[in-house]
């Protein structure tokens, strides 16, 4: 999945008979799909800007846009604290996944271990274990380690991930062999080679991995749901729940909170759009 493949357009050669009607049909389908994708997000932002008496309006833009809902959200619950926590947790998770992944990938590429197929298998298979299956022992362990209701507890179980190791492994294996041969000959200085030779040349895969790990950690919901007690020790995805009540939802604030929880990710996406799409395509889904 290279950049070329993404951008490759050879329109006319592969389409001799593209009449107006066909072109129109294709655009109609794509416009419809884009609308279905974007409209819910647009509607979230519009609703979050509506004054209270207009919440149920179906007008496409509020007559009198206001930030009251946002103000409500950040004053009623520790939303800013939660946003800060989420940022810390996501950044730490990404950093640790890159670090543990780099070390593990380097070991697998540099040394031909007898057990390397076993190690590979263990790493890859861990991806297939659904979190829900291991949640009870994980919860018990976190509670024994005193990690309940801490940010550390939110990070640690995700500090290494099969996907991170395998992505870096494949990228590193495609690395010029002379460099790794040199590394192999120079046993004593392997750490320096990893740090000064390999790492600087792994910019693209490390960036991909960081983006995906950050976004995944930002969107994580169930582990925080299990682990966190107090809102101020939790993350923004949990904060959303506070505007959903039995009696009914506070739609305006709920949409404002949802927008706040999505804004950083949407910004990352807008700025790094191409890279984000590419990284996800390289990765499959997490």
């Amino acid at each position, binding site marked *: *999945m290279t950049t070329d*493949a*993404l951008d*490759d*357009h050879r*329109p*006319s050669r*592969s*389409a001799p008979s593209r009449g107006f009607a066909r*072109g129109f049909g294709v655009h109609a*389908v*794509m*416009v419809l*799909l*884009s609308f*279905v*994708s*974007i409209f819910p*997000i647009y*509607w*979230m932002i519009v*609703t979050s800007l509506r004054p209270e008496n207009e919440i*149920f309006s*179906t007008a496409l833009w509020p007559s009198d846009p206001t930030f009251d809902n946002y103000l409500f959200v950040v004053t009623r619950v520790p939303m800013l604290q939660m946003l800060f926590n989420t940022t810390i947790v996501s950044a730490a998770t990404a950093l640790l996944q890159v*670090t543990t992944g780099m*070390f593990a990938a380097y*070991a697998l590429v540099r040394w*031909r271990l007898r057990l390397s197929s076993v190690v590979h298998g*263990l*790493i890859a298979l*861990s991806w*297939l*274990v659904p979190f*829900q299956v*291991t*949640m*009870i*022992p994980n919860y018990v*362990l976190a509670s024994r380690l005193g990690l309940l209701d801490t940010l550390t507890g939110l990070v640690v179980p995700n500090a290494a991930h099969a996907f991170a190791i395998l992505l870096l492994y494949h990228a590193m294996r495609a690395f010029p062999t002379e460099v790794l041969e040199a590394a*192999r*000959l120079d*046993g004593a200085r392997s750490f320096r080679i990893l740090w000064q030779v390999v790492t600087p040349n792994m910019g693209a895969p490390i960036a991909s991995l960081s983006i995906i790990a950050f976004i995944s950690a930002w*969107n994580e*919901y*169930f582990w925080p749901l*299990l682990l966190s007690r107090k809102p101020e020790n939790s993350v923004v*995805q949990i904060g*959303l*729940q506070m505007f959903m009540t039995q009696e009914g*939802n506070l*739609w305006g604030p709920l949409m404002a909170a*949802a927008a706040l*929880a*999505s804004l950083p*990710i949407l910004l990352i*996406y807008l700025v790094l759009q191409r890279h*984000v799409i590419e990284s*996800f*395509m390289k990765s499959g*889904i997490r």
Partner: protein
Amino acid sequence: MTDIQAEVAGPATAKMASMQSEMTRGQFTIAPWLYLAPALILLMVWTYIPLAETFRLSFYQWNMLPTSPQRFVGLTNYQRLLALPEMRNALWNTLYYTIGLFPMSVIIPLFVAIWTQDLGGRARTIYRAMIFVPMIIAPVVAAILWRWLLNEDQGFVTLALEGLGLGRIGFLTDPLYALPTLTWITGWKLIGFSTLLFSAANAGINPSYIEAARIDGASRWRIIRDIRLPLLSPTILLLSMMTVLFGAQWSFAYINVLTNGGPLKSTTNIFYLLWEYGFQTLSAGWSSAAGMIAFAGFAVLAAICMWLTKRFAFYDN
């Protein structure tokens, strides 16, 4: 392989040669394990040991309180579970989610990718950027957005349907509609991703094949059937495999936020059921047994998928 490398790289100096042999002849060296340790220890502590522990707990009765004893009950948990209509219902719904996702995770994206192959660069880039957005939105946010759009009193979709004279539909409150609705929301997040993956694979097909077929007088549909689909088969298999293995897991967040498995258990799937047993009714044994059943089932499916991929994926080398 290691021996050949040792021979090629080896004979420079005696010291180097001994270092080589130390590293390549399979004697134990500590260094690689030091590098692997952080990752392996974390995977052990947070995935494999908990998996073994879940297996152990599935034979016990325990209410998750640290002070209360764990009582060994053998296979009773499994027997009870398999006899429960709730469990059968959950397994059935799991199948529904998985199969229901296919149109959105594989079929529609596949044909959209083929049909939009001819679009110009700018338009295609914009469409791609837009249909990808749901993919990066958090599941909880997606759940909340759809809850708002579909809400029974004043939701945009409800009002729109009413405007069209279709009456109100209890998307999340009517057992008949709740399961399709949750499947739709799960799929909504996937369409863009699958479309992109297919588009990239489709653009990567060597145009000379299609040119040659066209010169031979092949129709458009025949080109799709005999050239594009076989060459897209690895991507089709990959996305099908991901749908089968992860589809039910993806719907979990929506069940939790939107319906709590209801109405009348109509949206519960196996992952949600074991969550309920674990953290709602605090029966760790049942939850663990349900977890092991799910894990074993998906492990078998994974093995079948791998075999199918090896057997049927067609690679253009």
